[in-house]
């Protein structure tokens, strides 16, 4: 949560750079990217996006019984220290940058991102068979990303237009 909140606050600070643009233009940018994000995760649009093409090093986890996992979770929560395999995080970043929702919504979005990241191991360990769960996730990962991005795009669209 702390990592996500940190990234979100950084995006919120940078959102000031977009503030000279009229709100209509900024919202149009977000809506256009939301549509592109859905098409990208459905495999209908090729849109290269920046990402760190490596995993968080294993030695981070081994720094201590408590500090290792905490640091690993923090780095994972920032969303910028490892692969970004879906487009929903980019949509969130663009919405924060161009939408300029304010500091509280930005922090909540970042904390939500961190919780969403943390939900994966929680759900996996709660499942009857984590190994089968891994197989299911592998088979459904594309649909999972597409569904999450579509839902995020719909929610952002509703929030901007109402």
């Amino acid at each position, binding site marked *: 949560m702390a990592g*996500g909140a940190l990234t*979100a606050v950084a995006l919120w600070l940078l959102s000031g750079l977009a503030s000279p643009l009229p709100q209509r233009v900024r919202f149009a940018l977000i809506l256009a990217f939301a549509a592109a994000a859905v098409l990208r995760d459905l495999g209908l649009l090729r849109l290269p996006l920046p990402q760190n093409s490596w*995993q*968080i090093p294993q030695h981070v986890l081994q720094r201590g019984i408590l500090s290792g996992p905490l640091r690993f979770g923090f780095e*994972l*929560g920032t*969303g910028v220290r*490892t*692969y*970004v*395999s*879906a*487009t*929903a*995080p980019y*949509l*969130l970043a663009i*919405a924060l940058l161009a939408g300029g*929702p304010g500091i509280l*919504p*930005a922090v*909540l*979005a*970042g*904390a*939500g*991102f*961190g*919780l*969403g*990241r*943390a*939900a*994966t191991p929680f*759900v*996996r360990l*709660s*499942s*009857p068979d984590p190994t089968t*769960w891994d197989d*299911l*996730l*592998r088979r*459904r*990962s594309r*649909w*999972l*990303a597409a*569904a*999450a*991005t*579509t*839902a*995020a795009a*719909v*929610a*952002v669209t*509703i*929030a901007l237009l*109402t």
Partner: protein
Amino acid sequence: MTAQPAAHRLQGWSTDPLAPVAVLAAMAVAVAIAGVDPLTWAVVGGLAGYSLSGSV
């Protein structure tokens, strides 16, 4: 049908990798329609975070 297999099936459904997406998607649309902007951002954040499942 005994209670134990039914409970096991329920646990299987509730811990399906797609289950959190379904729950978060419903919440995101509901809070967006209700106009609760801070919550909408939080839930959209949750969707974005969970969409990276399997990526570490």
